[in-house]
């Protein structure tokens, strides 16, 4: 019993020292040697939901370097907020919220204005192909303003209007109206592109 207490205190001390002063590689070494249950649980949850982070970053950032930096930042912010995660919502919803907050508060160094996209983009050559339609959808979403992009992405991922309002901080009615308008814009754009492609 006494040894266990000493070992546990020693382990905590090593973890604190590792987190505070030593390199990430050393932290991983301690993690692999002694095991950290909270970290392991977090890693597993993030691995299962990595699609959310990847998707949101892909929708907001075009430069590969920015994407890499943001990926790391989202993981760090999620880990920092994880201790406060009480399970009031599902981990997926919580991670969505942290990811959106991190992406929209991040200073992007190599930002490409999305307003420039329509002029530079040529419609795909074969409009009947299913993959082209989904590419159009991606481009149409990317041309929306950043908040409408949040709303439509959440909607397409199956969140209802109340949940969208909860994540964005809009009231339910405004979220519903904004969603409806964003959908109309996307459909209109996709129809236009369908018309101009050869």
């Amino acid at each position: 019993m006494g040894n266990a207490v000493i070992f546990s205190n020693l382990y905590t001390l090593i973890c604190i020292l590792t987190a505070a002063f030593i390199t990430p590689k050393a932290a991983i070494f301690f993690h692999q040697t002694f095991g950290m249950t909270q970290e392991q649980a977090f890693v597993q949850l993030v691995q299962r939901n990595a699609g959310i982070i990847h998707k949101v970053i892909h929708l907001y950032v075009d430069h590969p370097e920015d994407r890499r930096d943001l990926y790391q930042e989202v993981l760090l912010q999620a880990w920092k907020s994880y201790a406060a995660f009480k399970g009031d919502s599902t981990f997926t919803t919580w991670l969505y919220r942290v990811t959106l907050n991190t992406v929209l508060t991040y200073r992007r160094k190599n930002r490409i204005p999305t307003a420039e996209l329509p002029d530079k983009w040529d419609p795909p050559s074969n409009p009947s192909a299913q993959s082209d339609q989904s590419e159009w959808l991606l481009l149409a979403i990317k041309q929306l303003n950043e908040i409408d992009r949040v709303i439509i992405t959440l909607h397409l991922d199956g969140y209802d209007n109340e949940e969208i309002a909860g994540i964005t901080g809009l009231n339910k009615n405004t979220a519903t109206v904004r969603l409806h308008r964003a959908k109309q814009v996307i459909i209109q754009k996709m129809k236009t592109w369908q018309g101009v492609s050869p």
Partner: protein
Amino acid sequence: MDLQQEWQLLQEKQLRAPVLPEADILIAIHCDSQGPIAALLKALRWRLFFICSFLLFGLVLMAYSWYNPELRLLMAIFDGYYFLGLLMTVQQLFRLQRSSNLDNNLRFTLTTYYRVIKNAIRIDEMIGLFMYPIALVLGYLYAGVDGGDSLHHILTNPQDLFILLVVVMVFSPIFHIFVRWVNRKAFSKYLVQLKQNIDLLE
């Protein structure tokens, strides 16, 4: 047009996430943040370091010149100003640390970031406007008194007064403009980005 179907297809192809190795996650969560709040915190910690150093320096000088009432008064003013700067910086540091939580709703997060960064810039500019010129003036007075002149003599001598006036008139705007320029370069685009999104959420 079925957007839901296209979205599913998109997720299976273009938006499909690559496997995220455990080692990469562990490295990421033990790295330093590159976010704007982290950048401000870093700058604030440096400012805190300099303020503490100057405060300590001022206290040592005050102790050194304890038997000269004029020097003691000058150093007391110097320390008072830096103590005020210390309080403002510590308060700002706590406020920033509290606002770094990112699991609130988007509107709240964006508004908090906007407010906190604007406030940090405002305090920074205020410190730039007052702290450095006052330190220069007090330094000049200290050198004069330490050199044998009385404070009364320096403050009534037109030549010394002219130098002090020039120091205040020239250095105050220079420091202020410099601090504004640095902050604008670092944060103006970012604040516009935040403001646009906040407006969209109103």
